[in-house]
């Protein structure tokens, strides 16, 4: 058990330290790297409590896809040095909105944690049996039976956000010639080449 707690404290100290570094680091790129470190150590904590499926999903989804896109955007925008950090004492105008959002998130967390003991009244799970099966099986058993509505709802929210993102960036361009593989492959010499006798000093009109 000693080894277990040593590893637990190791990962949790790294998680807390890196999450602090995310918001205090001056260099935006370093912030993203610390965010990745934070995700990884939280994933390790999940694995340590036996939720290996969730830990791996955190690694795949957050570290493997979301954080890559973060890093991508930050590198592309080239906003390396953050001059107006709030701890340097200078006034910024983002601090108010940041405080409001932060307080809302804190409030939501308090509601969720406070309502934990009433969760049996809100939603009941019938099929969850604690046995020796792996937690992937147990997650599947509960997620597709008792929580199927919430699962579908999450899917619809993701779909909506995807449609919104596409709609925001979509613009129809006119006059763009598109490459069509079928047209290219189905061309043959008889349809692509036309031989003409050109009279001297007359020339020939080429359409298109």
């Amino acid at each position, binding site marked *: 058990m000693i*080894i277990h707690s040593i590893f637990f404290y190791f990962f949790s100290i790294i998680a807390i330290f890196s999450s602090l570094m995310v918001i205090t680091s001056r260099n935006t*790129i370093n912030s993203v*790297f610390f965010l*990745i470190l934070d995700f990884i150590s939280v994933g390790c904590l999940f694995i340590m409590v036996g939720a*290996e*499926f969730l830990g*791996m*999903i955190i*690694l*795949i989804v957050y*570290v*493997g*896809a979301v954080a*890559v*896109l973060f*890093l*991508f955007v930050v*590198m*592309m925008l080239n906003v390396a040095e953050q001059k107006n950090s709030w701890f340097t004492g200078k006034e910024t105008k983002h601090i108010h909105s940041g405080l409001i959002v932060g307080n809302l998130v804190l409030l939501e967390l308090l509601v969720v944690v406070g309502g934990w003991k009433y969760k049996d009244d809100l939603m009941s799970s019938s099929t969850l049996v604690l*046995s020796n*099966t*792996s937690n*992937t*099986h147990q997650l599947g058993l509960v997620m597709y039976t008792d929580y199927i509505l919430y699962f579908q709802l999450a899917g619809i929210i993701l779909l909506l956000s995807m449609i919104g993102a596409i709609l925001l960036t979509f613009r129809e361009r006119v006059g763009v010639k598109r490459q069509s593989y079928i047209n290219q492959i189905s061309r043959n010499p008889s349809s692509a080449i036309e031989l003409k006798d050109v009279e001297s000093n007359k020339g020939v009109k080429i359409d298109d």
Partner: protein
Amino acid sequence: MLEYIQILGQEIYRILFLLVPILVSVAMIVWLDRRVWGLVQKRRGPNVVGPFGLFQTLADALKYIFKEIIIPASANKVVFILAPIITMTLALVAWAVIPMSEELVLSDINVGILYLFAVSSLGVYGIIMGGWASNSKYPFLGAIRSAAQMVSYEVSIGIIIINVLLCVGSLNLKDIVIAQNDLWFVIPLFPMFVVFFISALAETNRPPFDLPEAEAELVAGYQTEYSGMMYAMFWLGEYANILLMCAMGSILFLGGWLPIIDIYPLNLVPSPIWMILKILFLFFLFALIKAIVPRYRYDQLMKLGWKIFLPFSLIYLVLTASFLFYFDKLPKGNF
């Protein structure tokens, strides 16, 4: 306390027993790659150093070790040095879960295939960090290309893995191999095998998808500013990743350590030999494709990933699921 030290020693011994053969085989595989490439083009390939040129890679590695490591003055030094280390480490840690036979596996975890998928999706960090930290145009363009490419093709690899998992009913790599005892998944899921193979080419930045390092456009892509041992680490990591993808393909589709048919002379051959033969077969295909296929254009690459592979593997997933459901062949898990 002494007990812990003993466990630690045993584990280190087992890890070394896994890592040293992998590093040696990576060196051999580089030689094989160049030989196959040469033979396709009617050249001899490396054949001077040692018997059949087998020690060519060792000679190259020695050369890299004694070369100077140059760090550009405007580079971000920490990230610049970290990038090849991350590439190499990620390529090697994934081997911990690869089963070479029923007993011969370093760590037999419940979510083995997810672990493999996670580690291979982290591989993009080495490239993107190296490209950014070089603080130079070509490496940065290469890194951006590579990140977009790897994220795109991971999606279809993930769906292919779900296809296989539907037939197995477990995330454990051993269970996946044992489930293929009667029929390798390459037969019912052949289209998925083809898509997996092409996606693996894109995931490891191999030709015809080697746009991140397209020498005609980007010098050498993200590796442009690297020299000496750091370049060699990128290079080793890349080949270890290719081997890993071959191992993943042979576990998912070619029945891992199982013999071709379970009859008398064939099932006497030890299981690791079968596994190695299958990995080598897939790698031979990788090497052949490098020699015979021209490079894709970038928009064609993206179109292939998102508009062809992703819908196709999704449709095949629905087909597989419906087939298994209606013929009542869904795997019954042990719970």
